[in-house]
């Protein structure tokens, strides 16, 4: 499917939820911010929140060092 992730158009395997996309991209579910079409998705909703063709996503890892 075609998605825009962090400003880049990408072709990824068919996924139906945020959780599935993160797993596909091998991104940890902890301390990551996910926005789908401008809305923030709470971590508790990753497993149910839908990802659809041509969605625009931001996936940002929390950077904790100081």
């Amino acid at each position, binding site marked *: 499917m075609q998605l825009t992730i*962090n*400003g880049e158009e990408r072709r990824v395997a068919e996924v139906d939820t945020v959780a599935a996309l993160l797993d596909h991209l091998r991104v940890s579910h*902890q*301390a*990551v*911010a996910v*926005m789908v079409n*401008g*809305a*923030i998705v*709470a*971590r508790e909703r990753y497993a149910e929140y839908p990802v659809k063709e041509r969605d625009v996503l*931001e996936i*940002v890892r*929390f*950077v*904790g*060092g*100081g």
Partner: protein
Amino acid sequence: MEAPQSPWAFSDKERVRRLVALPGVRRESLSKLASARVAIVGVGGLGNASALYLAAQGVGHLTLVDGDAVAQHNLGRQILFRPEDVGRLKVEAAAEALRRLRPELGVSTVAAPLGESNWRAVLANHDLVLDGLDQGLPRDLLNRWAVETGRPVVFAGAIGYEAQVFVVQGGRPCLHCLFGSVAEVAEDCAVTGVLGPVVGMAGLVQAQEALKLLLQVGRPLVGRLWLWDAFSGSTRILEVPARPDCPVCGAAPTAHKG
């Protein structure tokens, strides 16, 4: 604490001369800067960089909070420290370096980590807080302070080649809206590594945002996440909406504007 007498002491008027000419800066804001109390929580790579610029630029009072001692492996990026500081408390060594930089600066030190037992007392009576931490749990406490008081907290982090800065002001959106609880996050520069100037840059962006907030100029990074990737040389800014169901800043009538 008393500033030591110095033959080089001169008026802070000279120090802020280049601020006066800036668009948007009013004289009243300059006196606000001179009376501002800023807490820097964590005196590592971020705190070293932000403290230098805030002190030099004329912020009235800095409170430095850190329980650690200077280690040799800090010296590559924690630029207030000298080899002879190794083993000393970071807050002591940093306070001394900052007083040398600007004798008129008010500095107080808290030689303990920020935790559940002390955060309210330590942060009380500050206009603004800078996050210089390298752990998650106390960041959740800074976020609670930001939501409860409405006052600005300038969050930052850096690791590897990456840096982030995010400002919470007026209580929402908050850090929890963005990342959920970060209490469990333990990232270790010892494992991942960090490029000195990247963490320094994040600290300087924090100082820049703090000055914008204190001088009330421009558009601070409130509710916007600034991302810097030095590896690819790219920067982005993400607009972060408040989460209506955020357990920290959502619904609860805690936030009052400060």
